[in-house]
C-alpha cells in the first residue's frame, strides 16, 4: 500500500491528518504543495478542488481530513 499526503506546513487539518496517520503507524510520503507548484497543479486536476490535505492511497484520492473515508481506505479500526 502506497500512501501519499499532499499538504502545506501551516494548514491545520493537514497537521491533524498527519498525526492521525502516525498514531496508527501508517507510513506515508509527504508532498508540500506550497514548495511544489507542479504537485499543487496535479491535485487540482485530480480532485477538481483547491484544498489540502489530500490523501492518495494506491491511486484513490480523498480530499480533506475525512477520518471515516480515510480509515476505510487504510483499514484502520478505531
Amino acid at each position, binding site marked *: 500500500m502506497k500512501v501519499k499526503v499532499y499538504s502545506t506546513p501551516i494548514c491545520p487539518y493537514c497537521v491533524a491528518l498527519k498525526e492521525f496517520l502516525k498514531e496508527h503507524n501508517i507510513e506515508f510520503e509527504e508532498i508540500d504543495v506550497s514548495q511544489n507548484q507542479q504537485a499543487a497543479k496535479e491535485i487540482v486536476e485530480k480532485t477538481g478542488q483547491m484544498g*489540502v490535505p489530500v490523501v492518495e492511497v494506491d491511486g484513490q484520492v480523498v480530499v480533506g481530513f475525512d477520518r471515516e473515508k480515510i480509515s476505510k481506505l487504510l483499514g484502520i479500526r478505531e
Partner: protein
Amino acid sequence: MEKVYDLIIIGGGPAGITAGIYAARKKLKTLLLTKDFIGQVGKTSRVDNYPGFFGVSGQELMKKFEGHLKKFEIEIKKDEEVTKVEKKGEFFSVKAENSNEFKAKALIVATGRDPRPLEVPGEKEFIGRGVSYCSICDSAFFKDKAVAVIGGGNSGFEAALDLVKYAKRIFIFERSDKIMADEILQEQVKKEKSIEIHLNKEIKKIEGRDKVQAMVYQDLKTGKTFQVPIDGVFVQIGTIPATGFLKGLCEFNEKDEIKVDFESCGTSTPGLFAAGDVNNGKWKQIIIAAGEGARAALAAYEYLQSKTL
C-alpha cells in the same frame, strides 16, 4: 443502567478546554465533545495577545491547550458534531452525529463561531474551487494568481497578509467606507505592494466554469456594477455563532448569540451555561473565552452541588 455525566462540555476551543480543566479539577464526571481541537484559533496564523505566548501560531497554542487538558482525568470524544440538545426532565440529552445520545445533569456550550457566508450566487458552488474561508489552509493554491479578500476587518487584513507569499495581486474589498482592521495590521498591509484596498464595494456574484474566474461587484457610491477577473475569493466578513443544534432551549439575542449572565455564564435555562464566542459577550478574544470557560465550569459545579443538597 444508563450512564449519566455530571457535566457535558460541547466544544474544544479555549472556552471548552478551560471549562474541561476546571471541571476535571473539581472531579466532576465530565464528557467533552468536539469536532476537533482546531477551531477559529487553529486557523489563525499568529497570536500576539495571549499572555505568556507572544508570537505563537494559533495551531501551536491549540496544541498546548489540548495537551494541558489531557493532563487531567476527563473523557474526550473527538470528531463529534453535536446535532441536537434537549432537556428531558432533569437531564440534558445531547445527540451527536457519530454516536448515541449522551446524558448529563449540566451542560456547557462552548461551540464558538463559524465563518459568515457572503450569500451571493456562485459562493456555495465554488467552495474548494476558488472560494475559501481559510487563508492559511488554501493560500498555496494561488501562486501567481489574482485573489480577492472580502472584508476589511482584522481577519480580512490577516488573510491578505497570509496570501502575500503566494498571490500576485490581492484585492481587499470592503462594503463600508472605512477600514476596520487594527492600525498595526493596516501598517503591515500598506507596506505590501501587491495588496490593493477597495472601499464601498459590495460583492454581487462569483462566476466561473468549473472554478472561480470572475467576480461581480457594485460600487456603492456610483451604483455602477463591474466584473473583475479573479482566481480566488477569500471570504472574511465575520462569523456567526454555532448554535443551530440548540434551537429553542434557551434565550438568544438578535444575533443568535446565547444570552448569559456574565457572572456565571448561565443561560435562561438552569444548568445550561454558554462560554466564549458563542455567547452575547461583546469582545471575542481567546483570553476572554478561556476566562468564561473557567466561570462556566465553576458555576456548573455550584449548580450541581446545590442539586444534591
